[in-house]
């Protein structure tokens, strides 16, 4: 149940927060999720946030990129030395790493209070 709640909260955060507020609010929110929904190890918290963020940003950008027939993805990928598809993956990994670490931070902070 906690995992489902975690998944849902991170997914909603990654989808709505960057559209309507400031992008880095995803950090504090993911940390709060890690802090308030404690289960398993810190690494599980990291992994769930990482995967969900990767999927949400990866799919969102994947759809945009393919609707655009990869024109922009390929061009911007070229700036960073990767393919258009590589850039979609990087966008997902980028979100995953940021929120994963934020959730892990929240989770590890919670561990301190457990004592």
């Amino acid at each position, binding site marked *: 149940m906690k995992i489902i709640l975690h998944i849902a909260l991170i997914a909603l955060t990654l989808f709505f927060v960057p559209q309507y507020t400031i992008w880095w609010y995803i950090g504090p929110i993911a940390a709060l999720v890690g802090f308030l929904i404690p289960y398993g190890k810190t690494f599980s918290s990291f992994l769930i946030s990482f995967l969900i963020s990767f999927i949400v940003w990866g799919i969102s*950008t994947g759809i*945009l990129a393919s609707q655009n027939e990869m024109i922009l993805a390929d061009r911007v990928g070229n700036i960073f030395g990767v393919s258009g598809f590589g850039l979609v993956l990087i966008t997902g990994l980028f979100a995953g790493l940021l929120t994963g670490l934020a959730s892990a931070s929240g989770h590890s902070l919670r561990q301190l209070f457990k*004592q």
Partner: protein
Amino acid sequence: MKYIKATILIALTTALFALCSKPHTIGDNTLPALGQFFNPFEGFWANTQEPIESGDIFNFDNLSAEVQVKTDERGVPHIFAQNMSDALFVQGFITAKDRLWQMEITQRSAAGKLAEVFGERALASDTHNRRLGNLHYAKKRLVKWHELATDESKSYLEQYAKGVNAYINQLDPKDLPFEYKLFNHSPVAFEQLHSTLIVTKMAQRLCGREEDLESTNLLAILGPELFQSLYPEFDPNQSPIIADSNQTFYETPLPTLDEVDTYSYQAYEKPNPSNGSNNWAVSGSKTKSGNPILCNDPHLGMTLPSVWYEIQIHTPEVNVYGVTLPGIPGVIIGFNEDIAWGVTNVSHDVTDFYEINWLDEAKTSYQYLDEIKQVESVQDTIWIAGQDPFIQTLKITEIGPVMFESDHAGDQDLIMRWLVNEMPQTFELSTFLDLCKAKNYEDYRAALRSYSIPAQNIVFADKHGDIALTVTGKFPLKETGQGRFIHKTLTAENLWKGYIPFDSLPHAYNPEQAFVGSANQRSTGPNYPFYYNGFFDHYRGRILNQKLAAMDDITVEDMMQLQNDEESLIAQDLLPTLLERLNQSDLNSTQKGMIEHLQNWNGYYTKEDIAPVIFSKWWSNLYQLCWDEIEVLQKDYAVNKPASWNTIALIKEQPSHPYFDIVETPEKETANDLINQAFEQTYTELQDKINLEYYNWGHYWSTDIQHLSKLPALSRNDLEVGGYMHALKAIRGSHGPSWRMIVELGDYPKAYGVYPGGQSGNPASPLYDSNLDAWAEGEYFELQFLKGLDDNRFETDYSTLTFKKS
């Protein structure tokens, strides 16, 4: 342990978020704030979505009536308005939709405000442009425009700017053009001053060339006799735009050695010498259909987004189609239902330098003729992204800025008088606005009267059968020879005496030869009574006049071929001499093969051919060997090497000229020795490549169409297109035909055009470079010159936008 883990994680997370929230400079490059940049909903990914869709309706209180815009499949907007004022408001809006970032960068570049965006790497260009006086004089020019323009034409400039700003104001941050996100800045409001600056920028490119410092140093060092033989003013082979019966040019007397000095100043970067163009019009008597045909291809730096923006403007009074520079209202090169016009650059030298006679040590007052004048000191702040601003003091005199200032006693400070910094006597943009509605030759001439900078050969044809060409613009009235060298004194004699009157400007109207044309060559034959010097083409003008004279029953297809003609007379002028003087007795089989290629070559710079590579390398090696003496001088002084055409003339006519000797060797070389050495060098360079299948002219002379930021990822580089700077298809590096247009006049004009880019400035759009491949192949699009809103002749599925008065 837990504490350590938590501390590390929290620190790492915070650091990562902080890192991704700010832009960073790595070397010369600025990385955007990655978090926002990668944000799929607001970052660069959002640029994959078009912010405006077909069917959208906008309401603006700047409009007096409804305006409809139909956009064709190439992204060309066709604006249907009830009056010009409404049309130009919408032109501003639509141009901003497609080219906002380009408009901002162009005006910033002219104003010297690039460092504010790109940081220190743009500082040198900014300080130079400020010193030229671009921003200072553009502000004054705009004030003058406001004084001189009619209320109607003033409102045009205003409406256009308002249109651009209307677009900016409705822009959601996620829809900011891609480059704003990449380079981390926001659009500034568009001002009328920015249109003025964009005119200044074009003038800088087209009439900013001069070599007063270089020529003066050379004359002072070499002495008049040697200078005259290496740097003559007139090419006897040239074919002027307006020829006269007299073909003999007499060299202008040179100043004596007492009248010139050397200067240790570094020359500043000059505009690219390949900025030029072709235009011509043929009478109905020379065409198959009996209708006049007008052609134009301006050669400029070819960039993405493209320098030109295609548009049609339709009102009850005006129906015009053509291209303009983003930031300039109306149409600059184009046609309407009655006439067509096109431009090429005139290339007269309109910059003079004078030593300034300071009257005090602090350099605040100076002698100006009989008067003592104070310089206007302008504290000029250049903002730099991420750094403290750079502040320089500009000193402005009665006739222009102090361009060169010396910090030691050896050199005198120099004032630059540049035509572009002179105040206009007319509202200059009205020329193009008047041409948009011109109906005949008289209207064309009337429109040209208000034109000033940058001077252009404006060609004309109309449906009544008239053709004409006018060397148009403001030209200083000079004494013979004046302004070629730096003047040591500033006197009433060596100041400009006003301007050449409009009616005395070189001009051809329905000439007997039944064509008019220009390709940046000298404007006139020797009988023209007014002195000018400049930077003239020596090959395209000749071949254009030859080819047009030989043509008859001309069709539009013939004109397309002529615009894409790859032949150059430089091969005809030089190659026979090279082959004749090459010692061919000891050649190996590869060398013999090279010679065979050259013997079989027709002088066309075709991309599949290897012969032009061999010739071009041979010629460039030879040219290098010829001017080693000048290279020695270049270590201490700003000096230029002699022109190609004169190098060729000297090789042919004076092979024993002392300057053909290579200084470093004990032997006494002649031009013939250099020809043989240069061939040997060429062989060494080419022996491994010459038989490779891919190695040909197209590969060797490839073209880069670069994004304005020069980022390769946003550019289309290494295009193999053929052509040569001295051929009508004038391609060199990133320079070349930036727009090709052919218009056949008649009951209703039929027109064709293409440019190396696309209408959209958005790198995510298929229209970003959609015309480029056709351009590279020498193909054209039929231009959809619509008769009205309901014209369906082109069977195009137009997208539509509606602008309503609110």
